[in-house]
């Protein structure tokens, strides 16, 4: 595309052309980068207050974010062909690591999720958040789209295996997130509606046996608490009651930056990690929520735009899946803190403190940028 722009001297100013070309050369999607910068800056401001005005927390998170931007930019330089070539190998390595976790992993709070290699802990499930959609997109890219029955079954197998391995860790939230990222690939690939409705019916039919035999007691408790937080005011319901109080007491304008009483006085648990949206809502009010949702929405639109303008099937499917997965983070986190959804360990993307999610998400944005700057005419 850069050649095309350069060949049209009447199109825009020289600066414009030059900037675009610089951005293009480094495979940077300027609107996406700009939105991400705004979001992470806002996120750090909220975090500073939510973490009890701790500059250390901001520096720590800043370091993660810097690392994440680096990963994104590096990831953007890699061509889509390379991603495709790697996709099956990364996927297989990921599955192998998940098996390793099952055998020799270390755990916390009753779940075995981590691998420890010479003091460095890492969570293979996190890698799979990118590896699974990539592998499915790779698998489907060579097939006729919309995918036929056997292609669909193959794709489901590809997402089902790692999802099952993660469920038994157990980490239901991540497993669902990974399964969703795979399903999104299928959806964007144009999978027939009969599959979609069929799957919907199947899930509905499986709900009762899953509740009876599949879910663990604490998982059931979380769902029950959602419907009636008052039933367990000091236990599981506490988080929801306190986060709703924090959100509601923010009103339209909010209590002001660093004026959150719910968080400052320790009423709000996990105030700088999973429940940080409550602090934002309390301090910045509905205005802040609207601002945040707007930024998120623009990022999502940009993601869809990149998908629509992608040059290859692989790029399209990846862009759609990554964008929708990002949306799931937003929806699940904001929904759970506001008492719409059960409490699952999903952070508010790019705002909650913590390195893992940020790095994974920015890895995804790196791929998105690689897609957006994919040279025209790559056909796969």
């Amino acid at each position, binding site marked *: 595309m850069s050649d095309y722009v350069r060949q049209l001297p009447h199109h825009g100013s020289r600066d414009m052309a030059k900037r675009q070309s610089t951005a293009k050369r480094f495979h940077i999607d300027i609107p996406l980068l700009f939105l991400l910068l705004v979001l992470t800056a806002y996120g750090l401001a909220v975090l500073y207050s939510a973490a009890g005005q701790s500059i250390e927390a901001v520096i720590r998170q800043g370091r993660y974010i810097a690392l994440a931007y680096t990963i994104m930019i590096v990831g953007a330089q890699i061509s889509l062909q390379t991603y495709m070539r790697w996709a099956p190998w990364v996927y297989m390595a990921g599955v192998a690591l998940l098996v390793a976790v099952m055998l020799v992993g270390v755990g916390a709070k009753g779940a075995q999720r981590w691998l420890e290699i010479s003091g460095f802990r890492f969570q293979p499930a996190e890698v799979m958040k990118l590896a699974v959609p990539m592998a499915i997109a790779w698998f489907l890219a060579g097939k006729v789209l919309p995918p036929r029955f056997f292609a669909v079954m193959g794709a489901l197998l590809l997402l089902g295996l790692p999802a099952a391995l993660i469920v038994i860790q157990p980490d239901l939230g991540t497993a669902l997130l990974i399964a969703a990222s795979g399903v999104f690939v299928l959806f*964007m690939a144009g999978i027939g509606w009969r599959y979609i409705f069929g799957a919907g019916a199947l899930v509905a039919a499986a709900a009762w046996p899953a509740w009876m035999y599949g879910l663990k007691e604490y998982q059931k408790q979380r769902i029950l608490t959602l419907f009636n937080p008052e039933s367990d005011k000091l236990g599981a319901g506490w988080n929801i009651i306190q986060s709703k109080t924090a*959100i509601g*007491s923010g009103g339209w304008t909010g209590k002001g930056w660093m004026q959150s009483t719910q968080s400052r*006085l320790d009423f709000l648990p996990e105030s700088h990690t999973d429940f940080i949206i409550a602090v934002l809502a309390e301090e910045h009010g509905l205005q802040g929520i609207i601002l945040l949702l707007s930024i998120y929405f623009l990022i999502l639109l940009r993601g869809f735009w990149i998908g*629509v303008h992608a040059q290859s099937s692989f790029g399209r499917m990846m862009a759609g899946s990554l964008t929708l997965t990002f949306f799931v983070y937003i929806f699940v986190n904001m929904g759970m803190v506001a008492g719409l959804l059960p409490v699952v360990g999903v952070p508010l993307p790019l705002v909650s403190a913590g390195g893992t999610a940020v790095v994974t998400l920015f890895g995804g944005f790196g791929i998105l940028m690689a897609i957006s700057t994919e040279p025209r005419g790559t056909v796969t």
Partner: protein
Amino acid sequence: MLPQFDLKDPQFESRVYGSRTIIAILVVIALLGIVLVRYYTLQITEYEIYRTQSERNRVQLQPLPPRRGLIFDRNGVVLAENQPSYILSVVRERVDDLDTALAELQELVSISASDLETFHKKLKRSRPYEAVPLRFRLNEEERARLAVNRFRLPGVAVEAQLLRYYPHGELFSHALGYVGRINEQEAQVLEETDYRGTFHVGKVGVEKYYEDILHGHVGYQNVESNAHGRVLRVLERFAPAPGKDLTLFLDYNVQRAAFDALGDRRGAVVAMDPRTGGILALVSTPGFDTNLFVNGISSSDYAALRDSLDVPLFNRAIQGTYPPGSTIKPFMAMAGLLSGLVTPDSTVADPGWYKLPGDSRKYRDWILRVRGTGHASRVNMKLAISESCDVYFYDLARRLTIDRTADYLSPFGFGSRTDIDTTNERAGVLPSTRWKREAMGQAWYPGETISAGIGQGYMLASPLQLAVATSVMASRGQRRVPRLVMAVNGEAAPAPTLEPLQAPAAYWDAVFDGMREVVHGRGGTAKALAQGITYQMAGKTGTAQVIGIPQNSVYNEAQVAERHRHHGLFIAFAPIEDPTIAVAIIVENGGGSSAASPIARAVIDAWREEETPG
């Protein structure tokens, strides 16, 4: 095989993708819309609810309990004070493993099995974020050990609280009463607001009677506290109004003298200042250590007190009612003078026994057993009192009749509560024909009048009532309501008086004469008291039968069980010319009045020493 079917069609793919993208965007908008509506509902529609809830979270109204008023004796000796006491408590919610935590605590401080039992009982009833007390009265060393180990004991707190302390324990147990933990019944009666943050309330005695004054009024502070209940800052403070201090009429030394003189015998002493109605000493033995009750007495300690044959929890001085025996005689004499039936000089023939006209039953005088005859051929009032002649008073009682006796004795305070400022007072019995009909549904028998004349039979009076009656006698008819509290916060407490008992001076002189002879006369029943005495004391001995003695048989002290022996009584006042103290004493199963009378001397001596300047 249809080749076009298997060929990828980029145009079609991209069209499908475009439509899927539109669907995805619509779904995203819909779901983000739901989220936005949810936040709108919480933040705009239900804003007020959550704002209030958040404020309630943040700001807590904390009660500031008032300091309980102190109690002093008349000379400023502290009888009840408040001492800081350190309480070890545990917040269940903040302790990971309760059993481990308790085991660790047991290594640092001693925790008894009953402490643990109470703790677990309370734990069940409290919310997880509430601090449940585990040990009271931590000593300095224990506090230090807990402080050092605090970092590894999350959820364990040491709090200071002011606790009532009675420095003299048993000595003032029945005079003061005690405070204890508020129980459920009390919680319903007490003014809720004023007792926020207060855990103790007066249970008996002065502590209960003056609860309103001693308690004070609760204060408040608005504090900002975090979710763990720790106070971060005080926003507003309304100081509590401390309880008022009480100064009692009680005199430590007089009380001590009475207590020591009673020794390990069961009995009671009440000493009163006839000029004011002030109670100088109020002792009932055995007493008990009131400090045991402050923080909840252990069930074994309580069972020991409750089941003791000596009933130490029973306040003999005001709850115990006894037949006054011969101590009633001076008052009977006064009744006789007032009725005109006798004069100071009129006499009665005394063969040593008395018979009702037309009745063969012989009412014996106690002297008959000693001398085989009466006190003298004719007995006048002075002799009748000093030698405690029964026949004189048998005759007087018969002539006076029981109803008129009751009329004349009631101004001395018999048969009704004295209205002393403490709890659990009992009224005793001043019998009359009406009383017997109402209480027993029976008619009065003439023989009963005879025994009533010498204070036996139905008549019952508490040591306090005897002291009050003696005080009325000593002050020549001035009737004062007995008081324990002299001043509240240094301001004199009102001293209620009653209509005086009017009688000519000659009457008082006559009775006083008899009572002086009891102590100072050669034939006085308490003449042993006069030895080395430097002032004039008026007294009267008395003996109360514990078991009925059959007609014509003789009470033999050696032969009856200790607990069936007679009660010894004694009343006295001094100095006769201007009495400053009136005393009533009972020694249960003392055998006779000689067990009681020396106590009066000790008490009056102690009081006179207090009064003598320098």
